[in-house]
């Protein structure tokens, strides 16, 4: 079911990819955070949204495009390595879609939030992991980056993905009525 690339999926993938490009080439892709790096990335958010709405194949394609964007705009050695920049990102779509599908029956909102967190962590852990494997950073450094960057990024992703999906499906976290 998830593997059919229908017209609708092609179009959604293309448009979400366009947003990925927009985020990747302007300052909007980064949100200032009170961590050492100063910024948390949100460029992976269209990937997660695509995975939730249209399954793991669309998510993987978007993850691939996200990776290619990072590869092309990357100015540090680690990001110019396709195995670090592109390969791990393909899995964001897979894990996010799985998390959403798995938890959807339990609670829609919870599933969305968890999916966003899982997707973000996939990105952080797999990319850093590959960077360690390829020798760009040592394990302890990578681990500390993972925690320091990964947590704010997961939080931000959960909030934004939540806002989009909830608005799209006309749901609110619990409330059925406007807060007036």
């Amino acid at each position, binding site marked *: 079911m998830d593997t059919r690339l229908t017209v609708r999926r092609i179009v959604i993938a293309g448009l979400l990819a366009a947003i990925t490009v927009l985020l990747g080439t302007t300052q909007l892709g980064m949100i200032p955070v009170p961590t050492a790096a100063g910024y948390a990335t949100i460029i992976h958010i269209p990937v997660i949204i695509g995975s939730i709405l249209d399954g793991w194949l669309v998510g993987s394609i978007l993850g691939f495009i996200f990776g290619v964007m990072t590869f092309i705009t990357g100015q540090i050695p680690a990001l110019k390595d396709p195995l670090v920049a592109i390969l791990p990102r393909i899995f964001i779509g897979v894990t996010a879609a799985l998390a959403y599908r798995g938890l959807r029956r339990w609670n829609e909102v919870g599933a969305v939030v968890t999916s966003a967190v899982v997707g973000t962590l996939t990105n952080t852990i797999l990319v850093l992991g590959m960077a360690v494997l390829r020798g760009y950073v040592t394990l302890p450094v990578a681990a500390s980056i993972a925690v320091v960057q990964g947590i704010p990024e997961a939080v931000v992703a959960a909030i934004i993905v939540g806002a989009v999906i*909830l608005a799209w499906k*006309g749901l609110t976290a619990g409330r059925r009525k*406007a807060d007036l």
Partner: protein
Amino acid sequence: MSEPLIVARGLEHTYMAGSPLAVRALNGADLEVQRGEALGIIGPGGAGKSTLVQHLNGLLRPSRRGQLTIDGQDMADPRTDVQAIRRRIGLIFQRPEDQLFKPLVGDDIAFGPRQLGLPRPEVRARVQRAMALVGLDFEAFVDRPTLSLSGGERRRVAIAGVLALEPEVLILDEATSGLDPQGRRELLDLLRRLHRQEGKTVILVASYMEDLVDLAGRVAVLAGGRTVVQGEIREVLAQGELLQRHGLAAPEIAQIAEALSARGCRLSRTPLSVQEAAAEIAPHLAQHPAMRERTVSGLSEVGDDRRLSNDGSPGCALGVERGVL
């Protein structure tokens, strides 16, 4: 007359200045807006109308050479409190429904008032007033999911979102685009109400002169980034040749009046609606004996029961019969 609310002189604006794709949108635009008036801004595509009105709520700032004062405030001053300006001057863009982002209608309309930090009861009251103005039943719509509404309804929600800020001035940048004729009429009715009953200053940027006729008292014509003419609507519409030169057409009614004038039948003032035109032409027609009866019934068809006077010219009646009617 008191000090104008907004005065703009020689505004210039270039998008992407310094790059090979730079576009000079404004090249010396002037504007004067009086408190409480309804002003139309009209011009061909690319004339700079949007760019001009985006200066009026501080989205764009005057460049070195232009001047802009809003209620005495110099907009070129970096210390100007732009948020305060935006509370008083509301700007509605071309597809306002694109700005919706909250899951429920009521929350989206309440966004503006909440940003102002107003207390809950006041926020609710404002949302109710705004929804009433745009014709959305409060109980029926307030808890609906935003995206479950039709395009027209969503547009009304977006407009309500700006009205909830209760600005003194409302600027609409081509707000009728994409609406069907009924939608257009309803929106223009709303603007009339806002102007006449709520006393708001209304500025309407339009492509069709017809949108302006029962609303604007004064009109500014923009072309090539400059203000070509600013004045009372009838005076501006009468300048058919000037308008045509800048790629605009006066409403059909005004064109007919001008054609009549060219044939020796001058009407006392430029008509803005079919009714007015009928009333203006009728006395002249009545001079022609064969036309008199038809004129009387024709007038009552258009809903005008003005009595026919005898101050028309026979020649005009003839000209009308032969050339125009």
